[in-house]
């Protein structure tokens, strides 16, 4: 929470440069890259929701594809049947994502660590399976395509080129990420960090920790839902394959690479991983997995900081799932928690 003013100015100007470049990009690259970037941004936004849970709240998740899918299908159904106004679709996506999260809250918020990982994995798989079978709404495993073009707001022109779709995606992602960042600067961020560090202590201080975690889970669901709706716009197509296990795994790893108890790191990490995958698939057909695998191994070495920040923070929680005490910092002794869970 305490950043020196100089660093703040530096950070702000860096952010400004990045934004300017991001806006200018479609005029600098071809349509293919523009379309790719739009899709990547969408996945970056899902990455933000993953980081919100994994890094900030300490609930490592492989299941954000579930609200992502809910948001996507909500947006798609709206787009096909009635509504071509972007904000309405986005709102519907957010509601759908949050609703799906609400339905699964009791499954998730009591568990910790790897157990959360497996529960959310199961939720994600169940939702994908359901999406593949609910053909009347989702078009089954073949997916849905052929949506009428979106208009961002009433009265604005429709988005019918890669460039406009990219800019729309960028705008929404920037707004949502800004909102998330602002929210985390309030006490919410402090409380979630504390919950991640030591939730028993937080309870002992009078905080309703489960409620906090539920709120974070709902919020992350809404963010993923918005991303889902954006996917429909950016990609013009949705199918259950978009929400498969590979996507969740890559997003989680992207977040790890981003070193993201910081949301911005997560966005960057997820964008990086997805872009690398898509780019590698395009440039080195057939060798993409090999190169991507090597890339993961390398990042673990090259950016120990990025990986480290998140890891340090989550290591403890991962362990507490099994009732183990957090990893000892190299210097200070760490508490030896007792656990009835083990007895």
């Amino acid at each position, binding site marked *: 929470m305490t950043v020196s003013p100089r660093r703040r100015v530096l950070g702000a100007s860096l952010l400004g440069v990045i934004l300017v470049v991001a806006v200018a990009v479609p005029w600098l690259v071809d349509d293919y890259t523009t379309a790719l970037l739009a899709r990547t941004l969408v996945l970056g936004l899902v990455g933000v929701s993953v980081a919100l849970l*994994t890094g900030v709240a300490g609930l*490592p998740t492989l299941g954000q594809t579930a609200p992502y899918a809910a948001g996507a299908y909500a947006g798609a159904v709206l787009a096909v049947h009635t509504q071509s106004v972007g904000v309405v679709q986005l709102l519907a996506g957010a509601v759908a994502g949050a609703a799906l999260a609400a339905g699964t809250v*009791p*499954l*998730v918020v*009591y*568990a910790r*660590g*790897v*157990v959360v*990982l*497996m*529960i959310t994995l*199961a*939720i994600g798989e*169940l939702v994908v*399976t*359901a999406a593949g*079978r609910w053909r009347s709404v989702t078009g089954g495993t073949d997916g849905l395509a052929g949506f009428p073009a979106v208009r961002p707001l009433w009265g604005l022109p429709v988005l019918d080129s890669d460039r406009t779709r990219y800019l729309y995606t960028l705008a929404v992602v920037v707004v949502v990420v800004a909102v998330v960042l602002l929210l985390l600067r309030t006490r919410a961020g402090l409380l979630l960090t504390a919950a991640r560090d*030591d939730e*028993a*202590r937080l*309870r002992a201080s009078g905080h309703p920790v489960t409620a906090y975690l539920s709120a974070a889970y709902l919020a992350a669901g809404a963010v993923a839902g918005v991303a889902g709706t954006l996917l429909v716009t950016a990609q013009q197509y949705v199918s259950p394959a978009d929400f498969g296990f590979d996507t969740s795994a890559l997003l*989680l*790893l992207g977040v*790890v*690479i981003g070193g993201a108890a910081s949301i911005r790191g997560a966005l960057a990490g997820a964008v990086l991983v997805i872009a690398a995958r898509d780019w590698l698939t395009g440039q080195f057909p057939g*060798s993409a*997995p*090999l190169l*991507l*695998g*090597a*890339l*993961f*191994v390398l*990042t*673990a*070495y090259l950016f*120990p900081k990025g*990986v*480290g920040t998140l*890891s*340090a923070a*989550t*290591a403890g929680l*991962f*362990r*507490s799932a*099994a*009732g*183990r005490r957090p*990893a*000892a910092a190299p210097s200070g002794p760490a*508490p030896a*928690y*007792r*656990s*009835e*869970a083990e007895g």
Partner: protein
Amino acid sequence: MSGYLIPAVDGVAYGLLMFVAAAGLVFCFGVADILNLAHGTLYAIGAYTAARLADGGWATLVLALAVGIVAAAGAGGLLAGLLAPVGRRDHLTQALLTFGVALAGGSLLVAAFGPENLPVRIPAAVDRPVSLLGHPYAAYRLVFILVAAAIAGLLQLTVTRTRAGMLIRAAVDDAEMVAALGVSPTRIRVGVLTAAGALAGAAGVLGAPIIGPGPGTADVVLLLSLVVVVLGGLGSIGGTLVAALLVGEIQTLGVALLPGAAPFLLFAAMAVALAVRARGLRLPVPRRAT
């Protein structure tokens, strides 16, 4: 009624097969707390070895077992070497590294052995149906009753009775204090991953006739193993065995009883079981900071 008998028996055999396939992960993740997402790849090494070496005779099966164990153990050791220079040793970093290795290793295996599912030949004596209470049943699957019992017993003994087992558990709690007792935590980690590789390799060779070598093998084995290990309560070998049997029955008897819900059964059961257990542990506040 008897329509469910074979699925029920098969559930046991299939569950035990999964326990064998998961054994390496039980050891390195469940016991030693090292998240190894390349576990499926280690299994695949064993399975490919079986496909290459076993020709239907007992001698070659034994040879395949030996080579598979050595190869996968070597790969496990290599993995430990890769993990060593990384400063932080939490699960997410381990996941990143080992997943990368799994991705790359998977493509290398496909490059070496081709993209096809390879046939695995086993001795004719076990490659046939036997009569089980009047129903024909694949004899080879019954092998896993013995193998699983042996592995479970061995693991349990190692973990609870031997000095190595104590060191591994201690290193999970506090690696620095293990070092302060004069034992190098790095050596423990190398030992664990090598042993886990050997287990996975053995499972790969023996399991190859059922979960055979192919491009999807590693993923299937990893996913099922993770499910079994986490459901088993991370670290308890008895618990893992029970979880494996449970998953086996869900996949067979459950499917037989509720065929319409089959696609949802495994994951729904897993999510609910884990959530109920987590909630059960949480409500009376499990952790106490003294």
